[in-house]
């Protein structure tokens, strides 16, 4: 079962390569140990606490939006969970909407309609070439410009737009103006709206370019053949061009999804309680254990990113198999 010794050595590139690789590995390990020891010694010299014991302590602060039960008596571990779920929520919604927007804008950029093509071009170029934090602040301040509850804008019966969020009927109750603002119904918070809008608009522009590139990578002969077969425009796109473009699009698309997920860590700019905001900021200030907190956050983003890559690679592999059939 195991290859012969000679075979193994050959597979690793010969003895000389093995020595080099082992040396490099050793050097990396020594460097890592030295850095860890250094950090530990400095932290101890400063009298700082280390370790993960703080996760079991009560957090003491409130979080505006929680998908699971949470109170200030909950632990920092719970804060991590709440923040992680909020991150996944905004990333999940963001991926769906950004894909839709990107697909639309990408197709428009290739359309023969001058107005549509120009609009899409302006959108892509303007959004891709300005920094995301600036866009986030613009969205945040735009939402603040909405009227306060007393002068709420009624968009539809029961649907009110205010600078405290979009209120709409939910589970049988309609929002009404009472006390300090609206009660009843459900609301889309300005923080989530601003963050989602910024992420979707920003990533959508990149996805539009991915879509355009993918479609242009399909040989024009395919389109011509489809037309020769008598397929209409929509059928040509849906049945012939997009399936082939998809294979080119998936790897860059995956990287855009990763970017969106990682960019969601800018949430603190608009006060959305994502993982970095509640755990990497508030909990961290409370406990002072920066190395442990940041390491856990990095681990979370690493895991999510690897899962997204894995899923999209799997999809790509399935498409590739379909291609050979």
């Amino acid at each position, binding site marked *: 079962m195991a290859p012969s010794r000679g075979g193994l050595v050959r597979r690793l590139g010969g003895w000389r390569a093995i020595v080099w690789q082992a040396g490099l590995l050793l050097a990396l390990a020594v460097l*890592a140990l030295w*850095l*860890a020891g*250094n*950090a*530990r010694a*400095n*932290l*101890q*010299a*400063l*009298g*700082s*606490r*280390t*370790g*993960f*014991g703080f*996760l*079991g302590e009560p957090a*003491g*602060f*409130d*979080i*505006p939006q929680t998908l699971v039960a949470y*109170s*200030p008596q909950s632990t920092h*571990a719970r804060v991590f969970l709440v923040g992680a779920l909020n991150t996944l929520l905004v990333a999940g919604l963001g991926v769906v909407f950004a894909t839709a927007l990107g697909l639309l804008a990408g197709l428009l950029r290739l359309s023969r309609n001058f107005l549509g093509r120009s609009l899409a071009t302006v959108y892509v170029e303007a959004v891709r070439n300005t920094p995301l934090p600036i866009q986030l602040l613009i969205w*945040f*301040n735009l939402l*603040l*410009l909405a009227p*306060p*509850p007393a002068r709420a804008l009624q968009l539809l019966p029961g649907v009110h737009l205010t*600078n*405290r969020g979009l209120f709409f009927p939910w589970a049988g109750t309609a929002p009404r103006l009472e*006390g*300090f*603002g609206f*009660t009843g119904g459900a609301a889309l918070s*300005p923080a989530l709206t601003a963050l989602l809008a910024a992420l979707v608009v920003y990533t959508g522009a990149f996805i539009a370019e991915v879509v355009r590139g993918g479609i242009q990578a399909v040989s024009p002969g395919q389109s011509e053949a489809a037309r020769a077969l008598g397929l209409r425009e929509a059928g040509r796109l849906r049945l012939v061009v997009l399936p082939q473009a998809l294979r080119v699009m998936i790897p860059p698309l995956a990287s855009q999804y990763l970017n969106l997920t990682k960019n969601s860590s800018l949430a*603190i700019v608009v*006060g959305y*309680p994502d993982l970095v*905001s509640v755990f990497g*900021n*508030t909990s*961290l*200030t*409370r*406990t*002072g254990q*920066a*190395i442990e907190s*940041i*390491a*856990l956050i*990095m*681990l979370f983003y*690493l895991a999510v990113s690897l899962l997204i890559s894995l899923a999209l690679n799997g999809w790509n592999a399935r498409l590739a198999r379909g291609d050979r059939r």
Partner: protein
Amino acid sequence: MSLAPDSPADRRSPLRRAVPLAAVLLAVAVAGCGDDPAPATATPQQPAAQQQPRTSQGAVRESATLRAVRSRGRLNCGVNHSLPGFAYPDNRGVWRGFEVDYCRAIAAAVLGDREAVQFVPVSPTERFPALQAGEVDVLIRNTSHTFSRDADLGFDFAAIYYFDGQGFMVPRSLNLRSAAELAGARICVITGSTTELNVADFFRSRGLAYEPVVVDRVEQARASYARQACDAITDDISGLASTRSVLDNPQAHVLLPDVISKEPMASVVRQGDDAWEDIVRWTFYAMVLGEELGATSDNVEQLRGSSRDPELRRLLGADGQYGRMLGLSDDWAFQVLRQVGNYGEVFETNLGARSPLRLQRGLNALWRAEQPGLLYAPPIR
């Protein structure tokens, strides 16, 4: 110096076992990022934490931070970036405020020049790492002295320079009489501060619901409050007065009478450099003693020559050699009072009647003032 034992904590934590090698590697990577610049910058912030202050040649003790400040020629002072009255750059870029003047007083005491300060603006979340990493020598940034910060974070609190408390500001038009009437309200609060914890405690202990609107920066809290995206804003009362002074119509907003916490604002130094902590503490006491003994920036020059009050003569370096016990020159307090002024002067200029904030002395009056406060400086002996 207390060494924090980390292994018991590790063993207790189930997560430690669950997290595989990757976590360790990541932690190391982060640690590496944090550590590397320190040795490279050559400036002796690192030794400050590592070397114990030694007792050498009688009472003169060697402070690593003092040596670093001297060789650098300026003090690095961590301050707020936008808290009118306490610390803010004015429209010509000159730093002003009560906390800024405390920084200048330390520079005057240590280097003999109130201008020898580099002001380092830090956010609530950045402030502790900045101090820990040695980016600043002292943190004077409306930081409340609390138990866990003192015991757990590896810092020492040198002196409480302002006794504050947390309150609420609401639009006058709401006609509220107390914070208990804020049930169900949206309240703007800045993250990374004790205010976030106090407001949670306040409402939870009364069984009231509220909706926190948590933002990262005071500017965003102000903008949200000004646009009525939240009904109330909570902060230290001095901070609310500061916020009110920059709102469009300050008269349209009132501070509720409730004070929901004690916020003793203190200067913070790294734990382990006791001699430096003494300098930061006694610079503050010198300002308080100056007010108590009637020495102002205007008359201190003359008083040094003419005063017959023995305590004042010791303070100003006319008698005895008190300055060198701190490792400073003997006219250290004289320089503080001449170049910056006493506590009362600094308060009136930045926070009191001569400022837009118009704060009362309140708890921050001298212990023997007509309406006594809590300021009490030990004697120079």
